[in-house]
């Protein structure tokens, strides 16, 4: 029997993540991949694509609508079930933990679909890690800006050099067992409340 290539539909409002999933699928040799960001008119698209596997992010508020469509709509010619193998609790948990869900046309064999789901899970996790790291970098930049402002306030009000101002902040943070960014933020807030308007 000749195996026809599986048609995979990725529904994700996050374009970057969708691109990462799509790239992963193509690298794994899947050529019939469609990505949809907006669910408007999705019934017609599903009727056209006739997907074997549908990958959806769990943040999507349209999941209830999509599930109902998979079960009832005339647009979906073949019944679609969630996940491949309901008895495989570990892989279902991994998917939900990663924030992704997969719907699969009934009758597809487990070994054909499992790699797709595994890939989606690992790419979702990689994306989350990346987003977290980005957030950390952003937070670091933010705190560096606040430290600069706090230094400025100290230099102006106490007549300190930049280095002395930083040392004072660092010492205070160590003494209070807090982050230097937090100390700087407190100082900036307090200066805003108490002092004359700060010149930007």
């Amino acid at each position, binding site marked *: 029997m000749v195996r026809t290539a599986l048609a995979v539909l990725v529904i994700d409002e996050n374009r970057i993540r969708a691109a990462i999933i799509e790239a992963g699928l193509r690298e794994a040799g899947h050529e019939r991949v469609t990505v949809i960001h907006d669910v408007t008119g999705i019934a017609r698209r599903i009727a056209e694509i006739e997907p074997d596997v549908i990958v959806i992010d769990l943040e999507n*508020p*349209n999941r*209830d*609508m999509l*599930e*109902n469509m998979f079960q009832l709509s005339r647009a979906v010619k073949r019944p679609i079930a969630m996940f491949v193998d309901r008895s495989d*609790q570990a892989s279902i948990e991994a998917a939900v933990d990663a924030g992704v869900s997969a719907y699969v046309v009934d009758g597809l064999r487990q070994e054909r679909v499992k790699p797709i789901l595994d890939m989606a899970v690992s790419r979702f996790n990689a994306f989350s890690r990346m987003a977290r790291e980005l957030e950390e970098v952003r937070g670091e930049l933010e705190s560096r800006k606040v430290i600069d402002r706090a230094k400025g306030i100290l230099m102006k009000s106490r007549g300190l050099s930049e280095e002395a101002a930083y040392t004072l902040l660092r010492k205070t943070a160590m003494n209070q067992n807090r982050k230097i960014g937090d100390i700087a933020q407190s100082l900036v807030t307090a200066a805003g409340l108490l002092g004359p308007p700060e010149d930007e």
Partner: protein
Amino acid sequence: MSMTAAHQITAGFMPLFDSAVLVAAGELGFAAREGIDLTLHRETSWANIRDRIAIGHFHLAHMLGPMPLACNLGLTPLASETIVPFSLGLGGNCVTVSNTVWAGMVAHGAEADLDPARAGAALRALIRERAAAGGDPLRFAVVHPHSGHNYELRYWLAACGIDPAREIEIVIVPPPFMADALATGRIDGYCAGEPWNSAAVAAGTGHIVTVKARIWRNSPEKVIGVRKAWADENPEALAALLRALHHSARWCQDPANRGELAAVMAQAGFLGLPPAVQMPILTGHLRLGGGAERTIDDFFLPFDKAANFPWKSHALWFYTQMVRWGHVAHTPENLAIARNCYRPDLYRSALKPLGVALPGANSKVEGALQVATAVGATGAGLVLGPDGFFDGQIFDPDEVDAYITGQKSARAEA
């Protein structure tokens, strides 16, 4: 606090006003006072809540009343056995239509009085007129197939001689998107909880034509669905939570607390909508569109009228509607599953130490009370009803077969 609490409980909820009793239990200290460290997780779909209950991320969650039944009856892609020991309130939904549909209904005798029979008759005339002219069927939206919204919308239409399976189309739309879908013409009407109806009225794009409290007064809506495996292993934690929810619900019902409750719900992590938008559900005073206003008795009850009691008759009514609309086959096994899903016994045993009024029965004949009635119960001061269906029908939970057969033949004749 989390180090010393006797019970750690994780609960999911959807950003809807009727999660208020659960949210207030966590935010205002009712749970902590019962020795519970309650962690609340906001979710984006009912499917997510179902999945996270199924794999054990959540011990319990804010759920649509029929949802635990659907899980236990095997109607959902993923499920674990779910029980209902507490109801989060009665009422709270409306049916809203587009300005075009409303104009058509007015031409056929509808008035801005929320009367379900009058509105239904006008809608029926409009639907027949459109069909005769070869127009597309009207498209209505509900929030989920296994929801009070879907079943009360269908009940109302069917009782007005409209076949919801053939004469209209019913689609699923998430509640926050309803008003927008109506404004852009993707749907012609919808049944959803507040504030999503008032939102369309405020935008000038919709009219509220009737409300849940007028279709079936004091009828069930959201519940606390609990993963049964967890409930079986943690009876003390569950009982403590039910007591916390009881105190929270009593507090939520008190008009003196409306402002504070609305402020809590307004936070971004909960409902995330300004307090003013929450006032219609809190007061029962609704703007219907076109300048009309109405105050609805028992519009939404988070506590009064035994609102938190998980009546088996409520679960069984949902079951009859699942059968009626082809969601599940009526078999003795399925009926038994529906009968065992709501657990008034757990509610009663948890609240007994508080000495509060508790219903003596697990079921009641729905639609039998024409006026508010003090009922025989343990403790003092329990008032139930009125609980009538707008079409005067009675649902006797001991006569499920007859009720199902009666609805089937009524449809065949229509």
